[in-house]
């Protein structure tokens, strides 16, 4: 049987990818950011998931305004890194897990989550920066990835509660998959940041730390945070945090925090990172 072995959350700032790709990770500005992921790099070698369900958002790379799916499940065999306007990131092609993805699509739609199925999609920094942070710069990614793209570009994104419940449905779907696979669910994006307008640069550490606490111990309360509260408190782009709730929903009611890291800034953004394991019900 497939089994969810844990969850990981991380910001996915494009400048982090640029720092990795340009060999600047040891510069004083970046060193504390990357040091924060040393634990994850070791941890992932210990737990060795076979598949990641990687929740992220596209940033006008694969999806323009022509098509705006709220939830898009990547069912392809592979996903090429997107050219975001300055050439694709020099990272390996992302290898999918089409059989499990097809199982997820079927289960989730019958479980009332009407996902969009995507059989061809380039993946941008939202997906590849988290992989780079945790797996470094391998010749090939040592894990298969099922991308789950969430619209957070055009308001409104799906509600936090919807995301939490989708995560729970993912857990049910994974549990019903007959093949022995170790599955990890990653939620990416956030934390507080605003990239636009005169309020750009907003960072709300208090909100971010409280969100991590609630996510771990009171996920229903985290899921009840309204969109307007995210916008006001965590910035217009901080609302990406709804994606962390999908990861959380895929875990048991009780979780154990294995790792927490928080750092300001990476470019315009507060970097947050969690690793959670199931602690039983």
């Amino acid at each position: 049987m497939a089994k969810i072995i844990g969850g990981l959350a991380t910001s996915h700032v494009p400048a982090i990818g640029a720092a990795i790709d340009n060999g600047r990770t040891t510069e004083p500005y970046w060193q504390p950011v990357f040091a924060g992921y040393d634990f994850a790099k070791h941890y992932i070698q210990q737990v060795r998931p076979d598949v990641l369900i990687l929740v992220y958002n596209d940033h006008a790379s694969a999806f323009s305004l022509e098509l705006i799916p709220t939830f898009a499940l990547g069912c392809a065999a592979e996903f090429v890194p997107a050219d975001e306007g300055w050439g694709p990131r020099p990272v390996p092609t992302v290898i999918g897990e089409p059989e499990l993805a097809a199982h997820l699509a079927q289960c989730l739609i019958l479980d009332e989550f009407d996902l969009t199925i995507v059989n061809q999609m380039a993946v941008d920094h939202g997906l590849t920066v988290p992989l780079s942070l945790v797996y470094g710069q391998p010749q090939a990614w040592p894990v298969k990835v099922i991308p789950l793209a969430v619209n957070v570009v055009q308001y409104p994104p799906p509600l936090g509660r919807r995301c939490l419940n989708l995560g729970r449905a993912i857990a049910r779907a994974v549990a019903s998959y007959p093949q022995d696979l170790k599955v990890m669910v990653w939620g990416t994006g956030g934390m507080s940041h605003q990239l636009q307008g005169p309020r750009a640069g907003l960072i709300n550490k208090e909100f971010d730390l409280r969100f991590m606490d609630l996510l771990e111990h009171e996920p229903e309360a985290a899921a009840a945070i309204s969109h307007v509260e995210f916008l006001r408190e965590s910035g217009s782009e901080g609302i990406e945090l709804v994606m962390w709730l999908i990861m959380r929903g895929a875990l048991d009611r009780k979780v154990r925090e294995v790792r927490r890291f928080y750092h300001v800034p990476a470019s315009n953004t507060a970097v947050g990172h969690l690793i959670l394991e199931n602690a039983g019900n």
Partner: protein
Amino acid sequence: MREPQPYDDIPGTTVFDAERSRQGYYLNQFCMSLMKAENRTRFKADEAAYLKEWPMSEAQREVVLTRDWNGMIALGGNIYFLAKLFSTDGHSFQHVAAVMTGSSQEHYAKMMLAGGRTPVGNRFTSEWKSRG
């Protein structure tokens, strides 16, 4: 005619909702076209002529030509689409964020290093007054 929204009074913030997406459709799709190198070349060669190919309003063309980033946001631009334009110009997110806040990039970067812009006084006028 925009309907009032509960996020309208967040200071210095324009939420890219369905109505603004409709308003900014061609402005954003123009930006999207700059993902292709050949389009970037044509745009740089004659910006005004390139913009004429898109059914945008004159006001939208003007804010693009003058790189009035807040103006583009006000006319339906979304920052992730505008990123294609400022990348074409060779600018970073932090550069444009600084411009939009009316500060130098150096000053803005210092603010970020010092922990970013505080939410205090930047939530909205009554700062969740109703919460007591």
